[in-house]
Structure formats: structure tokens, C-alpha cells
């Protein structure tokens, strides 16, 4: 048996079309197109389309991805911030 019910086409695509207000070009000496990002930059401004397996929670696999890539510190602001976070935490603990 099959049943097929449809309300509307799911919004899998962007609505609308672009209108140009000002003809302009971007200066190539700043930034870079998303597709030419280096791996290091992708780890700061990217995502993994993961196919999660049965078992662990979404939270668990997210933690595993962080561990595999070793970017836990980067996600929290880089090694500079990590070394700065510890004394900051101590200050709060002591003052309370």
C-alpha cells in the first residue's frame, strides 16, 4: 500500500531573485571567495555534513568531531584565549 499526501513543495530552494542596486566589484586584496579557503580557514568558518550513525547523541558526535580535528581550542577562541581563560576563571572563583 502507498499513501502520498502533499501540502506544498518543501522550501528546499531560496525564494526570490537578486536585484543589482549598485554595480561594484570586490577588492581582491581583502578576504577570499569561500571556495578558495584553506583547510585552516575552513576549520574556523566551515561545517561538516555528517551522516550520524545510530547510538551516540548529536552532542556526543559533535564532541568526537572536535576531538578528531583537534580544534576544541580554536572553537573557543584559540590558544591565546585558552591560556587567558584559566586565570580569569580563578579570579571569579576566588571573588565569589
Amino acid at each position, binding site marked *: *500500500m*502507498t*499513501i*502520498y*499526501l*502533499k*501540502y*506544498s*513543495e*518543501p*522550501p*528546499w*530552494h*531560496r*525564494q*526570490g*531573485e*537578486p*536585484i*543589482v*542596486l*549598485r*554595480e*561594484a*566589484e*570586490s*577588492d581582491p586584496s*581583502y*578576504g*577570499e*571567495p*569561500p*571556495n578558495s*579557503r584553506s*583547510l585552516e580557514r*575552513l*576549520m*574556523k*568558518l*566551515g*561545517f*561538516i*555534513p*555528517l*551522516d*550520524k*550513525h*545510530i547510538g551516540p547523541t*548529536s552532542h556526543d*558526535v*559533535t564532541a*568526537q*568531531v572536535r576531538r*578528531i*580535528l583537534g*580544534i576544541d581550542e*580554536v*572553537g573557543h577562541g584559540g590558544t591565546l584565549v585558552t591560556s587567558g581563560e584559566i586565570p580569569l576563571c580563578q579570579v571569579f572563583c576566588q571573588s565569589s
Partner: protein
Amino acid sequence: MSGVLPVLLGRATKVAGIVMRSPKEYICLMKLHEEITDEELEWGLSHFIGEVYQTPPVRSSVARRPRIRTIYELEVIERLGKDVLMRIASSGGTYIRKLCHDMGILLGIGAHMQELRRTRSGIITEKEAYPLIDVYWASWLWRNDEDDRELKKIIRPVEDILALLPRIEILDTAVDAICHGASLAAPGIAKINTQIKKGDVVGVFTLKGEAVALGVALKSTEEVLREGGIVVKTERVIMERGTYPSVWRRVKRHKDTNK
């Protein structure tokens, strides 16, 4: 539960709300608690197409008040007695477990969700998703052989995930002000999408296609074209400050002071 789960890295975590609100597609195995005919099942399911009320389950991270969710498509692929295999396309934030439970109540026989797989999240389909083991080995190649090609295939730019958002592209001169949290005014806009409505969440991009920020439209496209003014209130900055020159500053400071 298995299936498509976009994992955001670094500053991309700021777009988590967009991922959550994007439409989803699932394959779901529902277990009916008693035998019913195909006609009865179809009658029951027909009440769960279109806009439905849903109260989040007891074990959930959000306030338990009724919300309206949209079921775009509902298809029974196969049925064997009490087992019903369905494909469901729904708006973001729909609880499929709850949907099955509610179907059981309406049918008067009870039902629960046995198994669930997400086959699509926004633009990302299961065909382009990678299992965790692939991420592991790609990362291994990168660390041990200094070969980053596989990992670069797996990790995609955050912009891909924002492809469904109404889009505004801005001039280079406006970028750094937005990175500092300023609202976007009409003179900074190079391109704007049609069909933007007041209150929509919009993506602000550079002309190179880089994501700058997410914001809320204060005006519709028509109003922007007619009267200009402040167009977008910046809510979430994605791009790092100092990526583009800060022409909006009167006193040009040393670059390091921006950090």
C-alpha cells in the same frame, strides 16, 4: 536515530539557529499498537498534513507550549501490519516522535516512533553527508601524510549552509562596520533579493560571496527600493573583524587593536 547532522566548526557555530529552523526530510518507522485498515490509516494521516499544532515532548530543551509546524509531504512507502514506513518533509523544529504519538492518539489505537533517519537538512542531503569514520581517516591522512585533499572535500564553507536565506550583498566599504555590529543601511547594498519581508532573517554577504553576518530585515525589498534607510539589524556576526578595511573609522588605528 541516524542521518544528516551538520556539525559547525569555529565561528560557523553562530549559524546554529539557521540549521535548526531549516526544513528537514525524514524516513520514519512508526509502530501502531493495534491492527487497522489502510483506509483508517489514511484517514488518520490526512490530519497531519499542512500546519499542525505540536507540543514539545517532556524531554526537550525548549519551553513546552504548543507551536505550529508545517508538514509539507507525508508518504507511506511501505506497510507491514503494524509497521508503517513513512517519508516526511517538515519545517524545522518538528518532533517526529511526537507526530507518531499524536497520530496514535487520533487513530485511537496508540502508536510510537520505532526508528528515524534524517535524509535531508536544508540543502544538505544524505548523499553528500559523510560518516564519522570518513572524517577520522581524512583527518588521519592530513596529520600523518600532510595530505589535506580528503578533509577539504569533507569540510565545506559555512556559506553553503546559508544558501536558503534571503540574500543581501554589500560593498567592501560596508563590511567591517557590519563586523563591528552596525546595522546595514541602503547605501552599502550592492545586490538585494526580491521577496524579502519585514522581520525575515537575512544573510549579509560580500561581493565575493563570503558570509558577513545574519540579521533581521527592518524593511521589505519594495520599501528598500522606494525609500532606502536602515535595512538590516545585525544579529550575529560571522566574519572576523579586520578582514576588510575599516574605512568607517575616523582615526585609523593599528590593525592589532581590533582584536
